[in-house]
């Protein structure tokens, strides 16, 4: 390993780092030396930071790290980007092996809770109390998913991302119809689009959590947020709620009516193929997170720039109890600090949190790519951004929601989430009935 040979050098590590800053190989070598756990405080001041790939967010994250490194030549952060689904496994394996990065990017909720229970991430409650300014400038709602048993274990960051219904105005012109105002409208639109050889909805079914977004809204619109809340709270047989059965049945009706693009079960979200179906006019609508706006603008030809894109909150279901203003999605993204990092690395991470995360430049970059940063007052900057209309819509959707629920798979423990996603994909595949889904899921409540 590089660290053993390095410790013998008379030159201080920092001196070495400064020399090597320009050379990629040098950086890699230094990072190798600092990643191991249990390293003496003498070495390893360089912190590491893992996050997700995919433009434009990856670039923004990289820019922030680069600005921090430029401003702080003594305390460097080395970053590595991973693809979404691979990251979930990678980070967990790394945590288990004691090789986690100093700064851990995450979704909060159930995943964070499992890290906390294993003692892998630091409690940041006191740090936030001492640095009230850092805490007070962020949306208060973003701290919910960062809190486990009343203590804060992660710094909320980046943007608020509700899930919304995107649509293609050109497709609606072709069939001479209006965007759906109710579930009934959706079912009426399906045969009309199919008759014109346009898939009513794009869906990346192989990714599974994409299917889940549909159920999140149907459950909420039909039975209100308390239906899933009961599951989350671990109440016995919570999935047996009549609203749940109704929602699951409606879901399969839409699948049977060919509501989703042909072959949706083999479409993957990581490759943005579902977005491509919408932007190329093959599908008329898509239920997806607001984070897709940036990539559709970047990769979707003139779909966004030509004004063909439309967006709205998920419509109500006739006779449903849920408030139509409710939404689900990611209240923020989260940065935790590994408990195994050295004191020096932790200091660097905290400095990164307080000086670099969501600084004015980063806020501006998120706004320009169609994201609403979780910083108070960013709404006043919306008007002067590149995408004022969409940002205003996202901001209104997020702030007017009576209930902003966290995505199910993020809220639940990884064990329960896997079972959930497995059964959801079978439900969409029509290989299990709604009742079988309920029975299967009732078995794992509270796990």
């Amino acid at each position, binding site marked *: 390993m590089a660290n053993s040979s390095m410790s013998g050098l008379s030159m201080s590590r920092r001196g070495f780092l400064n020399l090597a800053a320009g050379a990629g190989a040098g950086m890699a070598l230094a990072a190798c030396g600092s990643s191991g756990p249990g390293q003496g405080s003498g070495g390893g001041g360089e912190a590491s930071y893992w996050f997700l790939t995919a433009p434009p967010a990856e670039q923004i994250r990289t820019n922030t790290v680069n600005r921090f490194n430029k401003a702080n030549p003594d305390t460097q952060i080395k970053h590595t980007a991973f693809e979404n689904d691979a990251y979930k496994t990678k980070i967990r394996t790394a945590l288990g092996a004691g090789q986690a990065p100093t700064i851990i990017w995450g979704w909060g909720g159930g995943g964070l809770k499992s890290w906390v229970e*294993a003692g892998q991430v630091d409690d940041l409650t006191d740090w936030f109390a001492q640095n009230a300014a850092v805490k007070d400038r962020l949306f208060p709602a973003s701290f919910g998913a960062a809190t486990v048993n009343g203590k804060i274990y992660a710094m909320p960051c980046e943007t608020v991302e509700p899930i919304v219904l995107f649509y293609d105005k050109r497709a609606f012109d072709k069939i001479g119809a209006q965007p759906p105002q109710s579930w009934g409208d959706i079912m009426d639109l399906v045969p009309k689009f199919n008759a014109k050889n346009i898939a009513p909805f794009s869906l990346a*079914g192989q990714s599974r959590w994409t299917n889940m977004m549909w159920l999140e809204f149907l459950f909420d619109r039909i039975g209100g947020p308390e239906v899933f809340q009961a599951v989350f709270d671990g109440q016995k047989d919570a999935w047996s709620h009549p609203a749940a059965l109704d929602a699951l049945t409606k879901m399969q009706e839409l699948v049977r009516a060919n509501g989703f693009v042909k072959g949706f079960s083999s479409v993957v979200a990581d490759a943005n193929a579902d977005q491509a179906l919408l932007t190329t006019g093959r599908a008329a609508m898509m239920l997806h997170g607001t984070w897709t706006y940036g990539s559709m603008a970047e990769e979707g030809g003139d779909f966004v720039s030509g004004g063909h894109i439309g967006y709205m909150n998920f419509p109500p279901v006739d006779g449903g109890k849920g408030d139509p203003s409710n939404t689900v999605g990611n209240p923020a993204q989260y940065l935790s600090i590994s408990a195994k990092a050295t004191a020096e690395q932790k200091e660097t991470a905290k400095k990164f949190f307080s000086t670099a995360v969501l600084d004015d430049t980063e806020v501006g970059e998120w706004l320009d790519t169609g994201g609403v940063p979780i910083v108070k007052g960013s709404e006043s900057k919306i008007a002067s951004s590149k995408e004022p209309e969409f940002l205003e819509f996202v901001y209104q959707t997020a702030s007017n929601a009576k209930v902003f629920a966290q995505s199910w798979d993020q809220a639940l423990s*990884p064990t329960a989430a*896997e079972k959930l996603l497995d059964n959801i*994909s079978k439900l969409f*595949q029509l*290989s299990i009935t709604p009742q079988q889904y309920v029975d299967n899921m009732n078995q794992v409540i509270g796990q």
Partner: protein
Amino acid sequence: MTGLAPPAVRVRPPTTPAGGRGGSLAWMALPALAVFVAFGLIPLFGVLALSFTEWDGIGDIHPAGLDSWRAVLTDPGLPHALWVTFLVMALSWAFQTPASLLIGVFLAGRQRYREILAVLYFIPLLLSSAALAITYKALLDPNFGIGPGLGIPLLAQDWLGSANLALGVVVFVVSWQFIPFHALIYQGGVRQIPVALYEAAQIDGAGRLRQFFSITLPQLKYTVITSSTLMVVGSLTFFDLIFVLTEGGPGDATRVLALDMYKRGFQANLMGPASAIAVILVLVGLALALLLRRLGGRDASASQMEGM
């Protein structure tokens, strides 16, 4: 025949004192043994031990008795995964064996054009499973793949989205990747068949078809067993290709045992049950390998050189 004489000389009993010769050479097996123990046996016992515990991969490991085994053995997912594994095994064997046998026999000829074709046939062997899976996934995409691209409706099926088709695609891609390898084995086997047999058959008036079934096929018996063992045991561990191609989907239509193990262990964070499945996987693999050895080994003393 004179060709058989030298071995007869060599197998005379050793003249050195008992154990002398064999003992002095035993150390040569040590490096291989050390590697096998360190990376084969120890992890295997580790997995066996883990299967009696409860562990989420990052926290503390708690002993849990037979909980994991009970959970795995009562889960309807296990017989399903076993069935899918068996289907993939049986179908890919049934598809690969005749295809690679024929290609192997064809390539055993020494004509120049066959040697050029041989090089072309081996190309799939050079590609990594992940790259293959990504390529096939892109080709078979129902919206952006080769079918819609060329405007051929027959190719624009929901290849990876419908349960039966997806299983068929997995078998096809696996076979596509490994047929060259097994063809290579058969080619070697065919080339070892004494030419005299064919000459004798020709004199007796046997046609090409008759020669194939009466000489080539029986002479390749051990090659068939070797190749089948590799196929059957190898198919137990198919993971990368299926993981990238379908992720076990749609639903659980292509979720083989290895994939089931990964999903439980690394996605659902249930290391105990995942280890139990790993143990089952090892046992099934060993049983199959033994069975195949038995099938071929019963009359191992019987010579294929009878009448030569």
